[in-house]
């Protein structure tokens, strides 16, 4: 079992938030620390004015069945799963300071689920020996 999970959340498509939520919650359940680094197209979804992520057009035929199946299982939204994971275990969500600057975002623009705005050096040294997952 690894020391922890370092999840680099780069994508912004709706379906990518499902593995983010499930992997984070599972690690928290197992007592494995998780550090999420939000960058790239994922950043807008971690701000106070977060839009609703959209599914990839290529797989749109599958989306109605996916949503119906998730509704039947009463699956919570990715955001609520992530929030619960933070309450369950050692989970921290960091926003990439470079991407924030590029997009003109300040700390006060970020969603409360975000712990801090940090650079890549901080993230790398704080996740040394962790298993890296790029989403």
């Amino acid at each position, binding site marked *: *079992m690894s020391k922890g999970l370092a999840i680099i959340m780069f994508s912004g498509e709706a379906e990518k938030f499902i593995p983010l939520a*499930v992997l984070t*919650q*599972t690690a*928290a*359940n*197992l*007592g494995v620390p998780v550090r999420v680094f939000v960058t790239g197209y994922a950043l807008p979804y971690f701000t106070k004015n977060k839009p609703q992520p959209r599914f990839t057009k290529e797989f749109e035929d599958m989306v109605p069945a996916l949503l119906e199946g998730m509704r039947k*299982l*009463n*699956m919570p939204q990715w955001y609520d799963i992530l929030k*619960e994971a933070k309450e*369950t275990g050692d989970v921290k969500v960091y926003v990439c300071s470079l991407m924030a600057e590029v997009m003109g975002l300040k700390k006060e623009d970020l969603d409360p689920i975000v712990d801090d705005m940090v650079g890549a050096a901080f993230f790398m040294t704080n996740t040394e020996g962790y298993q890296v997952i790029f989403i």
Partner: protein
Amino acid sequence: MSERITVDARGMACPGPITKLVRAYRKASPGTLIEVLATDPGFKPDVEAWAKRTGNEIVELAEENGVIRAVIRVTGKK
């Protein structure tokens, strides 16, 4: 006699049943028996993995009519 808690996670999908178990586990005192009912087909190997990782004991693990019943003794807390 040790305290017994039942967690009904029937109808929930992965990682819901383990999350619900962990929620109860966090509040439980050592020695407590936690009974989990789940229909998630992945629950059996998941609960075994969870117990092994967290140092808790599985007292019972059985499936009947599509419902998996796991009884865990809280031994992973100091």
